[in-house]
């Protein structure tokens, strides 16, 4: 049964492993502590953004404002952190709260306004980007070194980034998913009406799912702050699209109900490392974009190629 559960993550896991092998082949230096750390740092923001997207996708929705929340929290952190550790920590907590609040807002409108998530989050995307721009009109800001090192440094071969991710997964994601709320999140996405007649409050479940999404987006923004040591309210746009790609590539279904964190996390690192691999292999930067997009398209098609062979037309219909 465990195997079944993680089966959907298989594509992403294998893809990541193959990519790493390819990377090592092209650029053996990547196996140094520096290389490992750099690679980890590249993908952690997206991995956290993917988690933010995943929790929403599990309920059957989608969150187009993930990138905007990442940018917003990045802007807040870089603007207010300053150099005093006490203040910095307070600001970080405040940043987490801000992101969580943004997610909560998404959840309120989706769950109680009963509007389709795709357009709600399309609208909040603009709102959160706007707020981020008000706070930080131009990229910049100040990020203390101790903070940047704490998240992006390493201890030998162990990148702090991975520790950060692991801590969040163990202390936030897993307890969430193992609770009744987590079970309800899966149930709502899987069979919405069924969840309702089983006694689950669909609205409440959605509300907390989107709130959790905001939380993880804030975590992504905080890591991004450490990584870029600056703030930029608009930096998040690519994270939305890539978080959706990571979630789908990682085996979750956009219709909801199925998915574990392992897949999207691996997919996030895969997508992030792809750029580095292309760069290291001497591929002209012009082709990088093309290959990134192309790989995504090919992988998606390959994962669904079985539909071409299915015997029953009706199997093809039901997504």
């Amino acid at each position, binding site marked *: *049964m465990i195997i*079944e559960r993680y089966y959907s993550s298989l594509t992403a896991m294998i893809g990541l492993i193959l990519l790493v092998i390819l990377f090592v082949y092209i650029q053996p230096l990547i196996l140094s502590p520096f290389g490992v750390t750099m690679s980890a740092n590249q993908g952690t923001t997206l991995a956290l953004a993917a988690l933010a997207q995943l929790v929403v996708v599990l309920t059957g929705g989608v969150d187009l404002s993930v990138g905007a929340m990442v940018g917003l929290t990045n802007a807040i952190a870089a603007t207010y952190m300053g150099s005093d550790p006490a203040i910095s920590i307070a600001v970080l907590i405040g940043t987490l709260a801000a992101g969580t609040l943004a997610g909560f807002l998404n959840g309120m409108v989706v769950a109680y306004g009963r509007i389709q998530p795709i357009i709600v989050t399309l609208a909040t995307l603009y709102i959160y980007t706007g707020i981020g721009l008000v706070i930080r009109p131009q990229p910049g800001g100040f990020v203390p070194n101790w903070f940047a090192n704490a998240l992006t440094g390493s201890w030998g071969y162990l990148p702090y980034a991975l520790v950060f991710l692991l801590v969040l997964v163990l202390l936030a994601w897993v*307890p969430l998913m*193992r*609770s*009744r709320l987590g*079970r*309800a999140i*899966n*149930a709502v996405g*899987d*069979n919405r*009406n*069924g*969840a*309702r*007649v*089983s*006694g*689950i*409050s669909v609205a409440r479940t959605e509300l907390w799912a989107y709130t959790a999404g905001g939380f993880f987006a804030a975590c992504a923004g905080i890591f991004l702050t450490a990584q870029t040591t600056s703030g930029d309210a608009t930096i998040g746009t690519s994270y939305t699209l890539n978080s959706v790609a990571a979630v789908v590539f990682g085996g979750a279904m956009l219709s909801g*109900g*199925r998915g574990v964190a392992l897949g999207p996390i691996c997919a996030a690192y895969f997508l992030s490392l792809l750029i580095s691999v292309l760069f290291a292999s001497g591929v002209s930067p012009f082709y990088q974009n093309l290959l990134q997009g192309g790989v995504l398209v090919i992988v998606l098609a390959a994962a669904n190629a079985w539909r071409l062979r*299915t*015997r*029953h*037309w*009706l199997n093809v219909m039901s997504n």
Partner: protein
Amino acid sequence: MADSSAAAASNEAPALEASGIGKHFAGVIALDDADFSCRRGEVHVLLGANGAGKSTLVKILCGVQPPDAGTLRLNGETVRLHNPIQAAELGVAAVFQELSLAPHLTVAENIMLAHEPTGPFGQIRSRELRRRVIDLFEQIGIDHINPNTLAGRLTLADQQLVEIAKALSHDPKTLILDEGTSALGREEVRRLFDLIARLRERGTAIVFISHRMAEVREIADRLTVFRNGTNVGTVDAVDMDESHLVELMLGERIEQSFPDRAPMPTDKEPLLAVSDLNAGELLHDISLEIRRGEVVGLAGLEGQGQGDLLLALFGMVRRLSGEVRVNGKPTHLGSPWKAIKAGFALIPEDRKTQGLLQPLSLRENIVLASLHRLTRGGLIDRSRERRAAEQGMKRLEIKAESMETPVVTLSGGNQQKVVIAKWLETGGDIFLFYDPTRGVDVGTKRAFYELIGELARAGKAVLLYSTELSELVGLCHRVLVMNDRRIAEILEGESITENTILAASLGVGDRHSANTEPATDHRKAGAAS
């Protein structure tokens, strides 16, 4: 079965009692001053046509929806139900026709959904959860379902069993089964009735909704009929008079269950001739013939390929081998549009999700399959379209405000008629019916039987897959019994009886198997067979 338990004569408060329940949705009155009560240790059957309010009542009784008026008493105490879990804790649990299972959660996770055992930090205790489910299965007597399988992998029948287990996991004092047997085959129904008998003995009150009179007869202690949202009568099973009950349900008398069968077809050449149809693991060596005006039935235990055969003939199955001839011409069936061109029409399994575009109007639905014939110069000819819709509505006597009414507002029977009207409009000749009366009430069934007769009289060929033996007996000229995805036996004329169909389904050579029910003949006495 006669109710001889003490509960019948005792003065103890009923397990469940609803009085004066009212409920309306968007101006439509679903329940109007409805009363209902069920005693401990009794099986109380709730009858009524579709739309009579049974499902709404059930949803109120188990906490899914609040009533607008009226009171609910459980074991004598007045309660106010907010949600199904609270209701279950107070002792009422229900199983619905629409599955509430999450396909990607395991059986165990589904059963304990929303009331999982948790630890100190709110973490679900998986091992404890599994243990409880295993215990539950043992109690109920389910030994063939693995609690760790994903619910979506189970057969429909097993899924329904899991639904029942889910309701029972709350150890309810009252169990409500709303069409709980519609997906079950005989074997499973037997198992379920054993379970119900055991529960009854333990003192559980059971409310049972079904349209299958045979089952109702076997299991009921008392019966209540609902019509137009209110209780029109309660009788003890011993005093049960079926025609009286039907009259209560419909508010009018109907003479017989089945209309006269259409005359035997006289053509020499068949309209449809199939030889050696094969579709991988779905169908093996199917050969059959149907003539104009003939009603041929498909029978057999569930899942023996009947549905797949219909789908295959309609072009929904790819990579078929074998020969299909319509009017003597060889036809290649690779897709629905080719099948329709050849004259096939499929009335699908689920008219709500496969047969009709619910929010769209009658007119749009009726012409949906014939638009290519109603266009001129690329544009839809509105007047021809309207005429087609009018014709369809008149021909089938579809009752609706106008052709613009959205189909979703029509009754089940009328919706079914719209589906058939759609196919009549295409000029199709071979009508394939996929279990059309499942979950359909008596009145609608009756109207439907007459329709089949009319189709046959109009010269159409009808292939009818039905899970109700009485229908096959009452409507068909011939019955093809399928087993193991082949045609196991062909029954004709006089030899079509429920016994013979059942025997052939089970593959029993002896026609008088001990397990069959007493033969029930619904045909009018003296009807020519």
